[in-house]
């Protein structure tokens, strides 16, 4: 019989009451998702690790001020995006990720096969090439556009949720996505279906 996991709100209340273990639970619960968010914005595993530690530290320090006006999920995403953007503003150099860090599951993904073969099975599936191009094109986007693309395209968040996280209107989210996609189309032309 499975034990029911306590909801986020309860863990937040317990943390606010001084239960550090409840916050540990929140770290375990949120770190994979927030890792993805920060990583796709910084394009560096090393920076993501440090930044994520800082994000959880900041959240822990300010959790007493969390009044529950938004969900804890939205609150954490807002902290993460803001800290990632501040970090990127300070970081002048643009890093690229190490190419051996990809889950092998990508090789079986139909979208990956489609993108790399163009319907021609004889063409060699080149994971490195696609990954390099994807990262380069992401890094060419502005920080704000990259945040929206990360949350919508990579993490699959709905427009309304992104609007809450970034404290902007849904219209602005859609507009940023439109311009970001147009920019990405130019960079990724060779992988887009013809």
């Amino acid at each position, binding site marked *: 019989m499975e034990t029911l996991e306590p909801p986020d709100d309860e863990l937040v209340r317990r943390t606010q009451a001084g239960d550090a273990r409840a916050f*540990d639970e929140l*770290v*375990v619960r949120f*770190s*994979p998702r927030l*890792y*993805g968010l920060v*990583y*796709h914005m910084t394009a560096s*595993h090393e920076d993501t*690790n440090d930044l*994520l*530690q800082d994000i*959880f*530290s900041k959240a*822990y320090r300010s959790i007493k001020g969390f*009044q529950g006006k938004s969900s804890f999920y939205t609150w954490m995403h807002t902290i993460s995006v803001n800290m990632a953007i501040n970090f990127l503003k300070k970081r002048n150099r643009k890093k690229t*990720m190490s190419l051996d*860090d*990809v*889950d092998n*599951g*990508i090789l079986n*993904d139909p*979208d*990956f096969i*489609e*993108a790399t073969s163009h319907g021609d099975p004889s063409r060699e599936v080149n994971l490195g090439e*696609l*990954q390099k191009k*994807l990262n380069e094109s*992401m890094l060419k986007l502005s920080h704000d556009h990259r945040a929206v*693309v990360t949350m919508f*395209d*990579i*993490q*699959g968040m709905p427009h309304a949720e992104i609007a809450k996280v970034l404290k902007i209107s849904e219209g602005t989210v859609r507009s940023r996505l439109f311009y970001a*996609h147009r920019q*990405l*189309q130019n960079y*990724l032309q060779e*992988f*887009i*279906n013809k």
Partner: protein
Amino acid sequence: MDNEDSITKLLRLKRYEQPSEEYFQSFLAEFQTRQRSEVIHRPLLQIAWDRFSSMFAMPPVPKLVMASSFAAAVFAAVFVLNWADDGTSNATFATASGTAKWDSKARSAQGQKSPAVQYVLPARPVSYASARSF
């Protein structure tokens, strides 16, 4: 629109760029270690400030309660001030008909030491000279 979909499909492939599960297991341990070291290496000034601010820390109170208590405090302050004022200048509340009564009371209370303060203008002008009109 097809291009939009293709871009989204391509970008979704980036979801595979995740570290292994062991990483997330060790992440928590690293977080706890960092937190402990933060507590140990916190500057004295920050510790002092935290203690100072916690002395004045207020529990979260809803805005409505805050507003109504503020209004009650203001009302109480006005009431107390008026009540204290009554001993010396209760003529404030005098009506035109009761002016003389209040004045005599005030004079007797003050033992004729100083002329009574007149708050209500008399019906007749101070000068008895007839008003001229041009």
